[in-house]
């Protein structure tokens, strides 16, 4: 046993897979310690907040300021104000006014603004321009002028007694606050999802649930598969015929279809994460049965098994000591594959809308389902679905790697 383990951990592929999986597991354990709380809590009111650090605007007003004179501050400010469509409109106006635009790129804010300030005049009437468009340019020009002119911004407050507007404070362009001094900041490394939940926190929790679903499904499938395979292979005869009859039928009927039928029939209220996991396990034992049976058949007539039989050992003991150790490696490999396909099956079911109940726990499939329902992939909210895909791929990749590594250890012909 010790020797086998040492051999297994000498396989580069297995170790690589094991490390990836261990990293995912560690993240699942450590992250909730750093950032405790309910993963399903809705912290944002809007949908799909971008990843990054959010600073309370309200608190910054009262925070102590430092003055910095930074040379490129104005340019940066202007570049942020100017949206892409504004830039296009500016270039359009300049072209219509027959200004020479050679050598000026749209993203070169400084040059574009220089040209604009030099040439724009609201009295110029360009051909074919409606009044609304003219007004738009006037507004654009004003906002550009204000952004570069005004040096202070006045924050006012309403006095509750007199209903008078009183000046609260003045903010200079050169005022800066230290993010550490602001009372309320929130870092969302992966933003929020369509419900305004913290995606990273949800992802970590979903990852745990999905691995649990995979494990339960794998255990159920391996248990049934092992039991039926041992019975069919060792007993032979009628038991073998009956079991193989059922197995052959379920090999051809796609388990995906059975999964859909059962999940749909269960109904939304009955489908907890555990139920879904068991259903997945119940529909995916066929492979294990087949391989265990063929292994057992080749073992059944070996000398050491016959010797045990002659010594009068019980069926249980023969199976436990003379057969199981020889097929253990196959069973472990089958189990690993079952776990990763169980996770995938849950994700696919959830995408169809047949996954676990949505109110209790997040799963990777449910997160994907919600992201797709709210068109995260079309509105550019990559943080809502890409980490989920990456996590699913990472888990199955690590398991596939471990499996290939084990395969090479136990099947010497496959070794590099």
């Amino acid at each position, binding site marked *: 046993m010790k020797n086998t383990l040492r051999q297994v951990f000498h396989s580069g592929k297995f170790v690589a897979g094991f490390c990836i999986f261990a990293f995912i597991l560690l993240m699942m354990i450590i992250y909730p310690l750093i950032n405790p709380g309910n993963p399903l809590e809705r912290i944002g009111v809007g949908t799909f907040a971008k990843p990054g650090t959010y600073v309370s605007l309200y608190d910054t007003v009262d925070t102590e300021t430092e003055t910095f004179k930074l040379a490129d501050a104005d340019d940066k400010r202007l570049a942020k104000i100017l949206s892409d469509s504004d830039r296009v409109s500016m270039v359009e106006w300049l072209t219509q006014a027959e200004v020479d635009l050679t050598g000026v790129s749209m993203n070169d804010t400084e040059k574009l603004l220089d040209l604009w300030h030099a040439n724009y005049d609201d009295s110029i009437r360009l051909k074919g321009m409606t009044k609304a468009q003219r007004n738009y340019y006037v507004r654009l020009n004003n906002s550009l002028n204000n952004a570069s002119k005004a040096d202070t911004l006045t924050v006012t407050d309403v006095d509750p007694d007199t209903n008078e507007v009183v000046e609260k404070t003045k903010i200079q362009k050169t005022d800066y606050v230290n993010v550490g001094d602001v009372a309320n900041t929130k870092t969302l490394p992966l933003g929020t999802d369509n419900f305004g939940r913290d995606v990273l926190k949800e992802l970590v929790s979903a990852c745990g649930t999905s691995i649990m679903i995979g494990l339960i499904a794998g255990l159920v499938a391996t248990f049934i598969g092992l039991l039926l395979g041992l019975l069919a292979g060792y007993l032979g005869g009628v038991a073998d015929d009956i079991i193989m009859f059922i197995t*052959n*039928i379920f*090999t*051809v*009927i*796609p*388990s*995906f*279809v*059975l999964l*859909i*039928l*059962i999940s*749909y*029939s*269960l*109904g939304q209220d*009955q489908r907890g994460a555990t139920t879904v996991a068991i259903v997945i396990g119940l529909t995916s034992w066929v492979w294990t049965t087949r391989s265990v049976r063929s292994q057992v058949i080749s073992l059944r007539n070996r000398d050491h098994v016959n010797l045990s039989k002659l010594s009068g050992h019980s069926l249980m003991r023969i199976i436990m000591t003379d057969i199981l150790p020889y097929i253990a490696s196959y069973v472990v490999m089958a189990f690993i594959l079952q776990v*990763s*396909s169980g996770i*995938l099956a849950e*994700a*696919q079911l959830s*995408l*169809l*809308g*047949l996954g676990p109940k949505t109110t209790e726990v997040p799963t990777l499939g449910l997160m*994907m389902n919600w992201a*797709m329902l709210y068109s995260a*992939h*079309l509105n*550019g909210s*990559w943080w809502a*679905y*890409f980490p989920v*895909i990456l996590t*699913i*791929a*990472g888990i*199955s*990749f690590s398991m*596939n*790697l471990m499996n*290939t590594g084990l*395969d090479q250890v136990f*099947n010497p*012909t*496959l070794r*590099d």
Partner: protein
Amino acid sequence: MKGYRKYFTKKVIWFAITFVVALALNFILPRLMPADPVAAITGRLVSGSSDATAAAKVYEHYQEEFGTNKPMLEQFWIYIKNLFSGNMGTSFSQYPRSVNEIISSAIWWTICLQLPAIIVGWLIGNLLGALAAYIRKGFDKVLMPLSLFLSSIPAFGMAVILLVFFAVNLKVAPVSGAYGFDMIPNLSWKFIGSVISHYQLPFWSIVLISIGGQAVGMRSMSIYELNADYVKYARFLGIKDRKIVGYVFRNAMLPQVTGLALSIGTMIGGALVAEIIFSYPGLGSVMYSAVTAADYPLISATTLIITIMVLIVTFLLDLVYALIDPRVKAAQFD
């Protein structure tokens, strides 16, 4: 040819039995569950109305329509009879369209998308796997982890990644559907062009996924065969390497055909979910809309059609397998 006929008959009988079991499961599973599906449908239909007699009327009507008030065995006969006369009922969510109509318009999209994609992915994957086994060294070192990673990405994940990259960001492919939303299916060049451009992303997402899995399988099969005794013997005899490689890959191919037959169900399942991402009007999208609308007749018809599709493909692959591997036929003489 005698062996082949025996094999063929045996296979036909097997698939007939499997088909009957699939039918029975499709019929029984939803009826075994504790919840009464008819009550659920009625509840949804009359929600908001307080008229109890109306609710009872609706319930009776649907009981009559589904025949749930009759004994189980009789229900099964009616179900089989309807099925063989080509009547799968009426859809709830897309009333008054019949389920037949919805399925027959969707099934061709699915077949034309998945069949070529799986075949192309299988061919490319096997070629790459065989090359990796033969060349080894650098090629294998890069290809092996890459295919392993590719095969780990779920089909819908690959669909989303391709969609976002090519359709949303680069805008070189359409975002959804199987043809331009402003078009009516006809046989003009414009329509065919639109179909082809909508076809690319779903097609390649399935191909990429199947390449990975097949390459990994073919690689280990080829390595296994390359180390077999007959190869060593052939080398001792001085047979040319090129000729040996030909034999080796023919032998390594065989388990890959069975592998395809056995995994086709899983592959189709994954690809059906990927259809939803592209809103491709195939069976996957039909199933999705049926599930969201709790359209029971449509769900059971889709699952049945998918089962039948998988059964037919597996059956054909089994026949092909016997044709290319003489050992299968020989086994029939024992």
